[in-house]
């Protein structure tokens, strides 16, 4: 017997330990495409919600170079508000999405009070401040519980004026020995003493948060590195692309500067120079387009009219002359997940490639159909020279092209769009036997 379970279960039994609930809420939130900020909010929520660790208030500092910068302060402003919020949050069946929504609203509300008080609060991590709480916790990379804060000489007075409680817990956010920030917790309203169990649980939340920030930071660095690599390739490519027209323009201009140029030769040279200038303009335009294209958020939209628009466009009509163009689009297509403008560009690019690869008289076939209830296929097939095996691995790399005057950005663009909307690309080809590009999009059936 095989049984299927949802591994993102959110409905734990009432008597499940709160640690279990807490870890479940946090780890599930990381499955959602929330931003780093939203996920930090989940951690902060877990620390303050009644079903979580249950601290009254949580304050977050993020590291900014060698300083700690106040980010936000979560928690009720009055004991009445605290009571109300805990009631809401401990309602059975309330999920993490609702909690985050609630806290987002709360943070907006707190903008004028709690959060604003720490928003401009910046601690330098120098020798002097590292000797005083709360920065001491960050510098020493340990959790510290402070009691009788007003009588304690090792507490920063400026900080005490803001937090106005006698007992608070400070712990650093660390992953792989790197400091990412600091969290400060207190029980300003209930005045409940902070117990060793609460500290352990809070530290665990901090550990998860740190690892999450760490991986998000790594991801950002990876994207930057990829961007740098692409820029390097671009610089190399541009050198070549620009040099040929420049040599041609320079050479034919030098000829014009020689004495005794015939009128015929002058006209010819000027025409060649004009054409090369046009080529330079095209290169510059395409580079600019590639650099500034920022992909829009994918949405569900009607693919049928978008496909028809591409086939009716004058460029495609002109390009398809001399070829057999065979289009089969299923009626009543589902809603497809993609940015509609990018979707049109994708099809245009694929058709461009198909026509360029196919000798006149060849056939280009386009199919659009639903693969199943949640996916839609757009495929473009040509009868051209096909893709050689060594080229297959390079197809989607920026600036890789087999065309004489291509930029090698079309398929790179397609890959970027497909990655953004969670789609897949399949390429089938054998040298001399044509090629087929199959794009698989996520789709949704209309009611």
């Amino acid at each position: 017997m095989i049984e299927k379970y949802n591994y993102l279960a959110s409905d734990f039994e009432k008597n499940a330990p709160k640690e279990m609930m807490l870890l479940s809420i946090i780890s599930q939130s990381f499955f959602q495409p929330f931003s780093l900020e939203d996920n930090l909010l989940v951690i902060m929520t877990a620390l303050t919600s009644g079903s979580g660790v249950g601290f009254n208030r949580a304050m977050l500092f993020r590291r900014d170079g060698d300083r700690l910068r106040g980010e936000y302060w979560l928690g009720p402003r009055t004991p009445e508000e605290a009571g109300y919020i805990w009631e809401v949050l401990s309602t059975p069946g309330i999920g993490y999405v609702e909690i985050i929504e609630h806290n987002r609203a709360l943070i907006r509300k707190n903008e004028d009070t709690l959060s604003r008080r720490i928003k401009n609060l910046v601690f330098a991590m120098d020798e002097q401040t590292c000797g005083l709480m709360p920065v001491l916790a960050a510098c020493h990379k340990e959790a510290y519980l402070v009691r009788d804060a007003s009588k304690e000489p090792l507490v920063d007075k400026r900080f005490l004026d803001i937090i106005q409680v006698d007992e608070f817990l400070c712990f650093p956010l660390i992953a792989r020995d790197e400091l990412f920030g600091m969290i400060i917790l207190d029980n300003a309203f209930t005045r409940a003493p902070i117990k060793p169990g609460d500290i352990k649980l809070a530290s665990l939340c901090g550990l998860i948060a740190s690892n999450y920030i760490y991986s998000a930071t790594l991801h950002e660095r990876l994207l930057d590195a990829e961007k740098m690599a692409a820029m390097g390739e671009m610089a190399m490519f541009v050198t070549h692309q620009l040099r040929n027209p420049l040599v041609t323009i320079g050479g034919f201009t030098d000829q014009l500067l020689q004495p005794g140029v015939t009128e015929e030769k002058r006209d010819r040279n000027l025409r060649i120079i004009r054409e090369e200038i046009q080529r330079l303009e095209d290169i510059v335009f395409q580079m600019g387009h590639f650099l500034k294209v920022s992909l829009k958020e994918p949405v569900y939209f009607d693919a049928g009219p978008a496909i028809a628009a591409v086939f009716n466009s004058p460029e495609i009509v002109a390009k398809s002359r001399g070829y057999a163009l065979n289009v089969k689009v299923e009626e009543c297509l589902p809603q497809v997940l993609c940015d509609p403008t990018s979707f049109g560009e994708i099809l245009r690019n694929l058709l461009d490639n198909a026509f360029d690869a196919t000798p006149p008289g060849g056939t280009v076939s386009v199919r659009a159909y639903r693969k199943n209830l949640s996916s839609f296929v757009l495929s473009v097939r040509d009868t051209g020279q096909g893709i050689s095996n060594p080229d297959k691995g390079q197809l989607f790399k920026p600036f890789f092209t087999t065309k004489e005057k291509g930029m090698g950005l079309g398929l790179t663009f397609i890959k970027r769009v497909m990655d953004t909307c969670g789609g897949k690309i399949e390429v089938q080809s054998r040298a001399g036997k044509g090629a087929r590009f199959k794009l698989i999009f996520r789709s949704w059936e209309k009611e």
Partner: protein
Amino acid sequence: MKKILVVEDEKALCLLYGEELGKAGYDVTTAYDADAAMAEVKKKDFDLIITDIRMPGKNGVELITQIMGLRKDIPIIINSAYQSYKEDFMTWAADAYVVKSSSLDELKLKIKELVGE
């Protein structure tokens, strides 16, 4: 008159090289790709070959290998838009490497060095 073969896929550049090197007193033949170049090499006894590297079909390095299999003694000048191919040891088989420039002076100088006026 020394006979030079120019292999270059950019037609405007072929025209330019043909005219300028012709004016400098050479007998210039042009070919737009490696296969056409090989056909010319078989037909005519060239004194020098100038070739691009990045071309549709076979590239310049492949062409050099082919030519050397047929006639080891012909001097070859690589004329590429890329500086970086200089580090590719396959291009060391050539006698000179000239990066494309709108002034043909360096190219002409190398030709003179290799085959004379």
